[in-house]
């Protein structure tokens, strides 16, 4: 499983993987998520299963919004709800937004991360960060 360090370009293999993962993703997302704001969202097993949507935030490239899915206390999917641009290329990139690593782990059924490292974000940038989504999911 050490082959997962990859370039970020969309490869044919990547597209195939994404398509293969889609039914599984759909099944995860089709599960009615408990309302995160209604009652306790955490339990001994971790955060409640379901989708957690970040705020839509205006960036200089356009609106950005992401959603993560938690299942069994683990991050199992990342979706881009709004992509930064209307260009076909950017839509293609957005379609690839589920991390390849997560896709592979999804197939194995045990994807999860505890935190995210990335180029330093500001207070504003935090809002759209994956770390923010993780904090929110467990909040």
């Amino acid at each position, binding site marked *: *499983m050490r082959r997962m360090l990859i*370039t970020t370009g969309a490869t044919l293999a990547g597209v195939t993987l994404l398509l293969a993962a889609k039914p599984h993703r759909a099944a995860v997302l089709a599960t009615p998520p408990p309302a995160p704001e209604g009652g306790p969202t955490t339990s001994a097993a971790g955060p409640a299963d379901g989708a957690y949507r970040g705020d839509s935030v205006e960036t200089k490239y356009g609106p950005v919004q992401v959603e993560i899915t938690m299942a069994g206390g683990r991050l199992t999917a990342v979706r881009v709800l709004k992509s930064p641009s209307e260009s076909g290329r950017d839509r293609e990139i957005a379609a690839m937004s589920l991390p390849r690593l997560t896709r592979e782990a999804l197939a194995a059924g045990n994807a999860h991360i505890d*935190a995210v490292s990335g*180029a330093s974000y500001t207070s504003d940038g935090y809002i759209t*960060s994956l770390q923010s989504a993780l904090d929110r999911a467990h909040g």
Partner: protein
Amino acid sequence: MAEPIRHVEHAMGTVFSFVVRAPRTPSVTAALAQAVAWLHHVDRVFSPYRPDSQITRLAEGRADVDACDPEVAEVLRLCAEIGHATGGAFTAEPGGRLDPSGLVKGWAIERASDILHRAGARDHYVNGGGDLQLRGEAAPGEPWRIGLADPHDRSRLIAVVSGRDLAIATSGTAERGAHIVDPRTGRPSTAMASITLTGRHLTEVDALATAAFAMGEAARTWAEAHPRIEALAVAADRSTWCTPGFDGLLAAS
């Protein structure tokens, strides 16, 4: 196992996420409050944006180091050490004005982590703006798992690393454009989109990540020769490289 204690704190122009896997005892609760207070203290002393911070007064010649908190001398000494160790790729005076911010955040996070550890909270992480100090484990027998954001689309991950007592820092252009200037040339560094460094102590790892980013392509040779550091870089053209030892940090899925 009870849910870990979680806390999100806005300070130093960014956001700090604490996850502490410990019972909510009075000593742990007090340590978390102390760690949060520490971050705000560091901001008051070291912020180059506050007109009355000790760093601003030093930069403007309105004070000398002896009149400052002892931590100021410590930070300036650490900056000099990192500058020396990187052949000048790190400086406490980017742009010619005193601003040790490239070291202060990682140093402050590692100290905050130490406060928690001393109080008996041996399993925790502190994430400050994307730079992390990990201690202990996410669960008994399970290391922490940290996703590395894709610099070209930070809703994606490029890899997941796992570790116990590990520091992880990423420098890049993703958030604020080409904001890291190579002190040796005075020009923004543009060869890399981001570089992630890992090591044991975030004080060193965070400052070295800033220096490595400024180095550009030379960072690869430098990182491979560094005994305590592993690195993963994403170039502006989306190609990637990593040090041989980085492979051992990748989380099994």
